[in-house]
């Protein structure tokens, strides 16, 4: 359990009400020990989702926030109660996926503070943590290399086959990809949740539809989800040159050469993944 998880669990036990600020990363709002709203700086928030699809404008939303709040937003009919609940639900779970693994910022709790769109849906903390774990496992299941999450999305110029079926979000990602934007930047432009774009990007990577990352491109570590057993793969850019590129063939291709079993070999004594594994192994010694 990370420190933030433990802190949240404590606030939930005490049935606290207020806002937990995580520096510039985001804020978690609680009411009576349950999470009502959560914002992460790099995933679209509810206001962004509403404006991205042309439902309303930022100026109108600002007006509601200052006067009338949620009730007026619903009364004026831009969204229905169900849609707003669904949007809050999606945004909170999306923010939680990226926010919960964050450590290093000192969280500040301000009792009593509430978000104007809070109170639409209530999440219990263990359920939230469980759902985030499920989502992370799902991502790793589709494509185990987390580096595509933080690198610019660069679709291949030529289709490595005759035809392909794209889902809606995959289509939007391909159309929106300018070869510079990272998945979360695309999510913001498209007004889609970060998770749905990550899913689409990882599916594209698994299908071999993305160019391999440029050599020497170091991925920023911030957006990388918590390393789990499944995706404790070092980022390609930080390793000494390897004989076989990890993107050589997708793992589900029956004719592909077998993926190396066991941890990847590396000659770098400062490889963080290796050090983490060593530390874990030492701790597990009886």
């Amino acid at each position, binding site marked *: 359990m990370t420190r933030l998880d433990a802190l949240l669990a404590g606030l939930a036990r005490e049935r606290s009400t207020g806002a937990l600020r995580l520096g510039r990363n985001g804020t978690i709002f609680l009411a009576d020990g349950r999470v009502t709203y959560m914002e992460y700086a790099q995933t679209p928030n509810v206001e962004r989702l509403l404006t991205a699809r042309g439902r309303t404008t930022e100026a109108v939303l600002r007006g509601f926030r200052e006067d009338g709040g949620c009730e007026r937003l619903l009364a004026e009919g831009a969204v229905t109660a169900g*849609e707003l609940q669904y949007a809050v639900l999606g945004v909170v779970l999306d923010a939680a996926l990226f926010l919960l693994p964050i450590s290093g910022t000192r969280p500040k709790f301000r009792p009593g503070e509430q978000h104007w769109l809070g109170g639409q849906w209530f999440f219990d903390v263990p359920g939230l943590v469980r759902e985030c774990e499920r989502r992370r496992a799902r991502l790793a299941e589709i494509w185990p290399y987390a580096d595509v999450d933080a690198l610019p999305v660069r679709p291949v110029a030529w289709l490595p086959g005759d035809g392909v079926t794209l889902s809606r979000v995959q289509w939007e990602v391909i159309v929106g990809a300018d070869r510079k934007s990272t998945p979360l930047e695309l999510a913001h432009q498209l007004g889609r949740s970060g998770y749905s774009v990550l899913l689409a990007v990882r599916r594209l990577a698994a299908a071999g539809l993305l160019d391999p990352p440029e050599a020497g491109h170091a991925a920023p570590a911030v957006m990388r989800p918590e390393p789990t057993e499944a995706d404790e793969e070092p980022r390609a850019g930080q390793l000494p040159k390897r004989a076989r590129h990890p993107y050589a063939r997708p793992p589900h291709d029956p004719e592909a050469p077998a993926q190396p079993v066991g941890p990847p070999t590396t000659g770098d004594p400062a490889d963080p993944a290796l050090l983490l594994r060593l530390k874990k192994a030492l701790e597990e010694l009886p």
Partner: protein
Amino acid sequence: MLGIDTCLAEVMSIPGALDAMLVDHTSGMAVACSSTSVVDAERSAAALTEALRATTDGLARTCPGEVVRIDDMLVTTDKGHHLFRPLETVFEGPLVIYVHLDLERSNLALARHRLRSISSQLTT
């Protein structure tokens, strides 16, 4: 105008409804689940999402050159009907209404009609 919980209650009031669930299609997460349900909501939501995704993929390959838009999907087993209705929302989704209907006591035409009207109340 319906909220998510009241929408589920409306779905359960369809004659012959045994179980109902609202599923977020993107993540395969159970958004809301009727209380009478004894199944593991989390797992069944993920599995039902895959079923719907597989159907979409299959149809996309069967009708090349067409954009597949599923209005509803019906699976009838020897025990009952399973009705899915993906609901376009402006944000994310679709949000899928799933209802399990009793084979003997339900009226499919009525159930589809009710689902249509519930979905029109849930979204604008």
